[in-house]
């Protein structure tokens, strides 16, 4: 009874190697050709084009024919698992082999051992070759032994994850093609479901955060080595957490697969799914995923009937496909009871969402429970996760008054659900995405996101933007102490640095003046009104404070800061501090029709066009400088400012706009005339 006690079966090992060893040989050759051979060729003789340095570091090995390495990682282990476990899917083979005196556990264990060897050994030999041929150029090594180990470990780990995943799918299915397809579906299942579920929930659940930062979602990496590797191995090595997760995943797959193999009814060979329970999971899983996929495809539609229609169509399609695969027959239309049950469940689910059974859509945290709120109108969750982890927490509010305002806004949005729900950027009305991220005192995080019309809720934004908490967060100048300032430099805000000739700027070094200027500017910032912040006018100038510790702080001089303007005038700095009418040779004015052209459409730099008005009058120029905004989405006129230094394509200011009513008379008159002529 030699086979009874052995951990592995020697005969099966020899047989597996005999039958599938060539995969290992092929894998070895493919790796050898793409890495060690390349290294040898690169460093041979004096044909060096580029000498890799130590700085190329550990990334260097993955850099070599990365795409070949990538394809190998995601195909060789799958092919190998398919080859090793193919016998489970063919009746003749499964019967013959399982009548032999070898336990299922031993079959499984031995196949895994052989498979692992075939995947690991070629990598190890190549690592040895790399170590052996490691060249030395000018005393520098392009890679170190540690780099080789990192390459070795990472490659083996990803190989093993793919292999074990593929073994798992091989055990649960009875059809080889399904094994392959399921392997790759599982590979993207978690991130794919995550994206699709988010899109769909966003359609139905009011306030569900839509722009959730998927790049930041580490769980997606962990559950999908494919996503992880596509995001890069060269410049972004696996960290220990990832390594550990992958090892745990491998072990889990091993244990589950072994268990299922022992439980497997061998007569399920050639069935799509080899376990009755899993057949049900598969059937409804496919139905559900197809439904989500349908919702994902039409995610920008807001017609509820259209969405429900798509749900119905896609889920039915999914159900039918799953049934066909399971029954291996096209005659599945008679058994639709399961689909009826599915529809009932989904209807209940959707009704639950519609009536907000969980209270998710109504929920606004209580004031006293809130630690901070992250809030950046117009940005949604952009940079939320990065900001959370950084030291400078811009956008995180904790002052009670602000919290109150934001809660009030949130509650108002909850109230306005029925008006806001159909709003989408494409409806024509200008809208913005706002997000609330509550950090509660009990450590919980509450995320909500809404699309709202631009103007309707400005009273709330006004309260927040005029608060000192907001201003200290965003205005660096408020943190500056005059005692630390060595120098203030004011540079006019222009499109090209040399558009006004070289070096137009103001430098203030007199300590008393520095103190005065800083205090006035700080007061201006503190008193700045929300309406001025939102005026759309660009600042007159950038203001830079050079500090005594050799650092500097940058802020700006807005057009609404009249007191500061006066101070500059009084001290004779005004000429250098802003673009003056004298700096401008002429302004080229064109009609701006965003509906028709897209609002930068007509901005050609050539001033020869007869639809272009040239303004040279000093007062008109001053008027334009003072009043133009960057709100080009409003119909009116577009202004481009040129200096006498002007070169083609190098204006002083461009993309400046005024609406028709606000434009100077000379502009209105000219264009009214040209329109009449046409």
């Amino acid at each position: 009874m030699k086979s009874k006690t052995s951990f592995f079966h020697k005969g099966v090992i020899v047989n597996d190697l005999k039958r599938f060893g060539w995969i290992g040989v092929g894998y070895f050759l493919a790796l050898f050709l793409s890495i060690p051979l390349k290294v040898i060729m690169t460093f041979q003789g004096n044909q060096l084009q580029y000498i890799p340095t130590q700085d190329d570091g550990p990334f260097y090995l993955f850099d070599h024919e990365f795409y070949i390495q990538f394809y190998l990682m995601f195909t060789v282990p799958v092919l190998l698992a398919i080859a090793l476990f193919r016998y489970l899917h063919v009746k003749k083979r499964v019967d013959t082999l399982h009548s032999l005196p070898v336990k299922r556990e031993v079959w499984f264990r031995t196949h895994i051992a052989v498979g692992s060897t075939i995947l690991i050994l070629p990598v190890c030999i190549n690592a040895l070759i790399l170590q052996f041929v490691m060249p030395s150029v000018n005393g520098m090594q392009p890679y170190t032994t540690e780099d080789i180990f990192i390459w070795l470990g990472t490659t083996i780990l990803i190989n093993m994850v793919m292999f074990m995943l593929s073994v798992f799918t091989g055990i649960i299915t009875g059809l080889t093609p399904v094994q392959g397809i399921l392997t790759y579906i599982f590979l993207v299942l978690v991130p794919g479901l995550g994206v699709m579920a988010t899109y769909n929930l966003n359609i139905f659940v009011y306030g569900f955060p839509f722009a959730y930062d998927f790049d930041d979602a580490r769980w997606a990496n962990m559950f999908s080595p494919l996503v992880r590797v596509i995001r890069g191995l060269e410049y972004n090595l696996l960290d220990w957490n990832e390594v550990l997760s992958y090892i745990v995943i491998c072990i889990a797959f091993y244990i589950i697969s072994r268990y299922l193999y022992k439980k497997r009814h061998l007569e399920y060979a050639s069935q799509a799914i080899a376990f009755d329970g899993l057949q049900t999971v598969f059937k409804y899983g496919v139905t559900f995923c197809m439904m989500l996929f349908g919702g994902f495809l039409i995610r920008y539609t807001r017609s509820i009937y259209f969405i429900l229609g798509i749900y119905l169509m896609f889920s039915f399609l999914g159900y039918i496909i799953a049934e066909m695969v399971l029954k291996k027959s096209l005659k599945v239309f008679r058994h639709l009871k399961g689909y009826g049950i599915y529809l009932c469940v989904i209807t209940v689910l959707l009704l639950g969402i519609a009536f907000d059974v969980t209270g998710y859509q109504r929920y606004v945290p209580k004031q006293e429970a809130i630690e901070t709120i992250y809030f950046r109108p117009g940005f949604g969750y952009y940079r939320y996760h990065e900001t959370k982890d950084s030291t400078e927490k811009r956008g995180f509010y904790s002052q009670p008054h602000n919290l109150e305002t934001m809660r009030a806004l949130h509650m108002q949005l909850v109230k306005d659900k029925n008006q806001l729900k159909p709003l989408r950027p494409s409806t024509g009305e200008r809208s913005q995405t706002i997000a609330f991220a509550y950090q509660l005192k009990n450590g919980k995080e509450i995320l909500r996101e809404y699309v709202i019309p631009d103007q309707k809720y400005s009273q709330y934004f006004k309260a927040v933007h005029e608060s000192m908490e907001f201003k200290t967060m965003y205005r660096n100048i408020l943190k500056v102490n005059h005692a630390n300032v060595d120098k203030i430099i004011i540079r006019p805000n222009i499109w090209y640095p040399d558009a006004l000739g070289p070096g137009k700027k103001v430098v203030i070094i007199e300590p008393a003046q520095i103190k005065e200027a800083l205090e006035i500017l700080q007061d201006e910032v503190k008193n700045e009104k929300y309406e001025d912040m939102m005026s759309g006018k660009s600042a007159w100038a950038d203001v830079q404070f050079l500090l005594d510790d050799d650092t500097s702080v940058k802020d700006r001089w807005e057009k609404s800061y009249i007191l500061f303007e006066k101070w500059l005038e009084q001290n004779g700095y005004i000429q250098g501090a802003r673009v003056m009418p004298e700096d401008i040779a002429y302004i080229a004015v064109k009609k701006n029709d965003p509906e028709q052209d897209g609002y930068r459409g007509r901005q050609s730099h050539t001033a020869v066009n007869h639809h272009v008005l040239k303004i040279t009058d000093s007062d008109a120029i001053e008027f334009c400088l003072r009043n133009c905004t960057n709100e080009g989405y409003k119909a009116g006129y577009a202004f481009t400012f040129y200096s006498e230094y002007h070169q083609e394509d190098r204006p002083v200011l461009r993309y400046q706009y005024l609406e028709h009513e606000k434009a100077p008379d000379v502009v209105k008159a000219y264009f009214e005339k040209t329109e009449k002529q046409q």
Partner: protein
Amino acid sequence: MISMKEVSKRYKSVEALKQVTLTVNKGSVYGLVGPNGAGKTTLLKLIAGIYKQDGGEVMVGQDQVSENIKVKDRMVFIPDTPYFFTNYTVQSMAAFYKSVYSGWNDDRFEQLQNVFDIDLKNNVNRLSKGMQRQVAFWLALSTMPEVMILDEPIDGLDPIIRKKIKNLLIQEVAERQMTVLISSHNLRELEDMCDHIGILHKGALIVQKDLDELKCDIHKIQAAFKQDVPETLAEGIEIVHQEQNGSFRNYIVRGQRERVTAHFQKYDPVILDVIPLTLEEVFIYEMGDLGYEIKNIILS
């Protein structure tokens, strides 16, 4: 040697075996007959330890079969289409079987080469179907099994090979007390080698018989009488079936041969013949009404 107790097996909604109880003694050859889809293969695969029963008990010797290496090491299963690894020669298949079965006997293997006369270097998968069957037998017999489970192994083979294989099996049974369980959808195939027959129909074992007992117990009598058939003819013997063909009368009668002929002689028949019954006929008459129902099936 082999015993099944109230074994049942379902494939989803289909009940493949219903409460099957069966015993095969050591050193005997048990023939399992039934039409396609009767559950023969299922029954054999349960005994071979490939499938797991849903209820009941499958034993070989004193042991459960499922996942039992000790039992499987003494048992060989030959499926209706044997499987050989791709690109394997007879020799490499033999090497594999040798590594798997502890009872493998190299001498026996070489000795059998003379019987089968197939080149060791042949790629097994390129051989004809009949040749592949022979290789399967060759490998199986070289493991010196105590039990052989054969799923329709000779159906569709040419008569010479059929004979050869039957002889080999009978020889093994006689010499080593090997136990054989063999299936066929054709009773005639098994007639000359089995000592027990079981008929499987729609998942149930409807009859099990010892052939020796069966054949000497029932007779076909052809007789013609000068006058009408005496009314007392049926008294004292058990007539299972009778029919008239012109003046000839055929009787199927149960009972000892001498006693039955003596009984007929008493009525002074013009002609009296005892005609041997085929196994099929025996079964059909034995099973009464059920026999007629499955007549077409087992005679196919």
